[in-house]
């Protein structure tokens, strides 16, 4: 079901295959359960964020009302509904990381990238996610995720190395 007066975007075969894998996990008629998995797939293939057109295409492919997809996309923190930088950094600042110096890491990254939490660098390379949840790697605090890879026991040197590498990417 697409939004009125707009033609529904066609999902690529790769994404359709991924969505099919999710749909197959649930009973017939319960394809709504596949929305989260579908959005992960779509977002990954769209440089880390969702567009209304992509969400509509997912709804259309799953034969569900668009609102079901919008509800999910706006509820879960891993889904971005605005354009963001290609690489995502999420620094954990919850209790254990805070006690182990995560605020210092956040300040350092903000200063080096010249952006605040929740913003993307001007060159569009790095999105500094405002992470509120504990990322469940507390014994390796402080830690952060870079494109969902867990990097633990951070210190300023380690952070610098990572930022250098991301900066060199084209």
């Amino acid at each position: 079901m697409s939004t009125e007066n707009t033609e529904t975007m066609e999902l690529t075969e790769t994404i359709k295959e991924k969505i099919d894998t999710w749909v197959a996990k649930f009973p017939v008629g319960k394809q709504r359960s596949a929305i989260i998995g579908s959005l992960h797939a779509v977002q990954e293939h769209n440089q880390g964020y969702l567009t209304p057109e992509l969400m509509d295409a997912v709804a259309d492919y799953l034969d569900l009302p668009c609102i079901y997809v919008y509800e999910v996309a706006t509820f879960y923190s891993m889904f971005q509904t605005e354009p963001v930088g290609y690489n995502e950094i999420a620094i954990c600042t919850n209790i254990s990381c805070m006690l182990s110096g995560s605020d210092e890491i956040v300040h350092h990254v903000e200063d080096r990238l010249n952006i605040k939490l929740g913003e993307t660098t001007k060159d569009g390379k790095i999105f500094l996610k405002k992470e509120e949840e504990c990322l469940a790697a507390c014994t390796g605090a402080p830690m952060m995720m870079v494109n969902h890879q867990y990097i633990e026991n951070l210190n300023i040197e380690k952070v610098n190395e990572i930022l250098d590498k991301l900066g060199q990417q084209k």
Partner: protein
Amino acid sequence: MMHENSICFSNINQPESWKIENYMASGGYLQWKKILQGQPGDKARQKIVEIIKTSGLRGRGGAGFPTGLKWSFMPKTTEQKYLVCNSDESEPGTCHDREILKLNPHAVIEGMAIAGFAMDATVGYNYVRGEFIKDCYPIVEFALQEAYTHNLLGKNILGSGVNFDLYNFLGAGAYICGEETGLLESLEGKQGKPRFKPPFPAKFGVYGMPTTVNNTQTLASVPKIIEQGTEWYKSMGTDKSPGTNIFSVTGHVNKPGNYELPLGIPFADLLERAGGMLDNKKLKAVIPGGLSTKVLPGDVIADCTMDYESLASAGSALGTGAVVVIAEGTCMVELLKRSSRFYYVENCGQCTPCREGTGWLYRLLQKITQGKGQESDLTLLVDVANRIEGNTICAFGDAAAWPVQSFIEHYYSEFEYMINNHGKSIAA
């Protein structure tokens, strides 16, 4: 001798412990095969439920509900029933399920297969936290494929007539989905807003069908308990807290880590395992069971043993076993502000006391740390917390209230000092 790493972590020091051949080499899947090759009927199901009941295993997700009893709530009807593993680990300070999923995923799979059989649930879902998408989710997926390849899952498993299909599910970042009915909503592809109980999931679970939700550590404990027997399991721990628990010890300690140890271990011993206090600082406070449990001052926890009853009588809870150690010199006002921000941002927005109240709590604490606080704000903070507690659909509201109540109860003078000194911390 102290039993260490005897249940979920029993094989994690072996190389590539996540691979099926290594799990099998240390006796893995033997219990599942025994069940399948015995007479897998109602008697066998009952026997397993009895074993788990007798073992005294309690849910490790935080609530500590007796697992065997929970299993016995499932109706004995022939309708489709489901088993769901809660691997949405996100209670702040907790990180042992991630380690189980990474290092011993087959214990979770075998535990799920056995639990599914015991409750006649022929379909299982392992709800894995979204953020684990590139971290341990690939390992969990790999392990699941291995189990299918070895014909340990699926239809008519090893010719036994028993069916159990298991699927991995991936969340997308929402603390509330760790709440079991929020999780079920999420599994149905909706926003993770918890449901009213009753009806409980055993009656009305995923897709409205009977469902049991157990935590990762709980399910991963099942094969070992069956293998070694309930007497062995109960020889560890205390009367009311039998067996072992994985303690995630973090914060101001020299060796943060996940320690699988018998319940009832004195706090002092656990702290010693974790290398003692960082920089030899004095212990100030401990949050003993994840951020949602009440903080205990150092001198109170010093006399506690790490089990359900001791921590409850001290005024807190074992929770998820996430032991957050806080040294002298830490500002408790700043710590509570961080805690309150978390509950403010992560609340699902469904119940008014929680949705509005968590914002009040966070803003009042901001006001105090900005040096604009008044003495009356402390009364107001506790008042707001009290009005959230017990007045919401799920326990999230209580979890948001307890840190506020306990921090102010034990560290009132620090809040007072900051208010009287324009935001200056007594700890700084």
